[in-house]
């Protein structure tokens, strides 16, 4: 977190610079099945973030040394397109994208019924086309929808969502300015059916009470986004039928 307190992020009426209330999230649009080649795919627009995701598999994992006898491995690549950020980023992975790929894969492994596909691999390709704070959450949401679109059995979907703190106030779903100049960010991956978490990161400064309020906001938003996810999948299947 930047934590630069001298940038004003809240209006006098308590609303945020873009007019949202503290517990209001940015608009979310989702489409399933947007990539002809993939076994499953999704497009997520969360605020100004755009993430697309393709799922390929399950196929036999190779080389053989990556195979697991009792389950599928999930291979996630989270990648930011060079033109997705304010300053162009060089193509290829960096330390940040490798870390996000790792923890995203581990989150998805927690809900996919990987034991149904021994010795196989499921590839999840997340591409960020536009970034405006919150891309890892948009990527998790997109990956869940794409896996469902691919017909891969899951215990539950995972909804990616974040809350944080700006000007000592807990707010839901930080945008770019709030992320740059705010005090904390808590992105999570929530299983909407149970409220359990499969993904958790946080940086900044939060008291235990502030943390609890963040989580409350996140749980509420997860339900809203979950509805949009379900709607996208339904539209796809009705179209296909």
């Amino acid at each position, binding site marked *: 977190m930047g934590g630069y307190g001298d940038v004003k992020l809240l209006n006098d009426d308590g609303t945020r610079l873009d007019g949202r209330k503290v517990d209001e999230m940015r608009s979310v649009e989702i489409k399933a099945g947007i*990539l002809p080649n993939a076994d499953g795919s999704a497009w997520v627009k969360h605020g100004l973030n755009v993430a697309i995701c393709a799922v390929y598999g399950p196929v036999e994992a190779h080389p053989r040394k990556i195979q697991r006898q009792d389950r599928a491995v999930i291979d996630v690549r989270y990648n930011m*397109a*060079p*033109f997705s950020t*304010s*300053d162009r980023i060089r193509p290829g992975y960096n330390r940040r994208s490798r870390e996000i790929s790792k923890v995203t894969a581990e989150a998805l492994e927690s809900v996919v019924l990987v034991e149904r596909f021994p010795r196989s691999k499921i590839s999840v390709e997340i591409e960020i086309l536009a970034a405006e704070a919150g891309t890892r959450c948009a990527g998790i949401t997109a990956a869940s929808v794409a896996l469902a679109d691919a017909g891969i059995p899951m215990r539950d979907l995972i909804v990616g969502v974040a809350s944080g703190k700006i000007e000592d106030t807990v707010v839901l779903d930080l945008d770019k300015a709030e992320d740059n100049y705010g005090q904390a960010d808590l992105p999570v991956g929530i299983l909407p059916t149970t409220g359990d978490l499969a993904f958790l990161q946080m940086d900044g400064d939060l008291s235990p009470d502030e943390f609890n309020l963040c989580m409350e906001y996140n749980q509420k938003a997860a339900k809203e986004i979950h509805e949009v996810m379900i709607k996208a999948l339904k539209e796809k299947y009705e179209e296909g039928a």
Partner: protein
Amino acid sequence: MVELVPQLLRQELADLAAMGKRRDGRSQWESRHIELEVDCLYNADGSAKVTWGDTIVYAGVKFEIRQPWPDRPSEGSLMCGAELRPIAGKKYEPGPPSPESIELGRVVDRGIRESGCIDLGSLCVIPGESVYGVMVDIHVVSDSGNIFDASALAAIAALRTTIVPASKFDTGEDHPLKITKTPIMCSFTRVGGRFVMDANADEELGGDERIHITLGDDGHLHSLQKGLKGVFSPAEFAEILEVSQNQCDVLRKMVESAGGN
């Protein structure tokens, strides 16, 4: 690796060719349906999405400020690159840039660069000190054949809608990038023994060599490239060069009507 499918496919494509047909019903010199959307990516200074049959390509333009090359003190630079990441299809693997992606980027780059559509002198900020570098990144998200033409189209369409983000660099006010020409690429693939325009994924899988032609507004050649195994005769080339003139005109109109600078 046993390649049974391509062998059967090659036979089928040859049989169709003998009857003057293609697998998806198109004629020899007929392209698939093409959709072009511009200015579609937040954070990119210029952008385009091309949907070409089932092939989908994004192009995004970004600027940087850099020192000029010592031998070109008053010129900025243009660089096109392409990524063929695993999202684009089953055959793509993660890893360092493949020869395929390097070729794609370089062939698109040459077509745009050699057409002279960008006056590199107009990208100078302070002679000998700072110039703009223009980076066009091509991102193929679905490869169902003929990614070269789709990429070249996305690149020039993105450039034509590009705003130079001068205010971000404190080098003036934002202004449209000046693009004076519209180079267009048209590619041909040998399928079933004869060349066809705009091969789809099956035709590429069961086909042979490709020829990529980039033409300028005046019908001049700016870039040529032959790829994959196969030879062709001068007469065959003369025919596809002729055909490409028409197709490039059609695509150029599509780009120009998509709006831009």
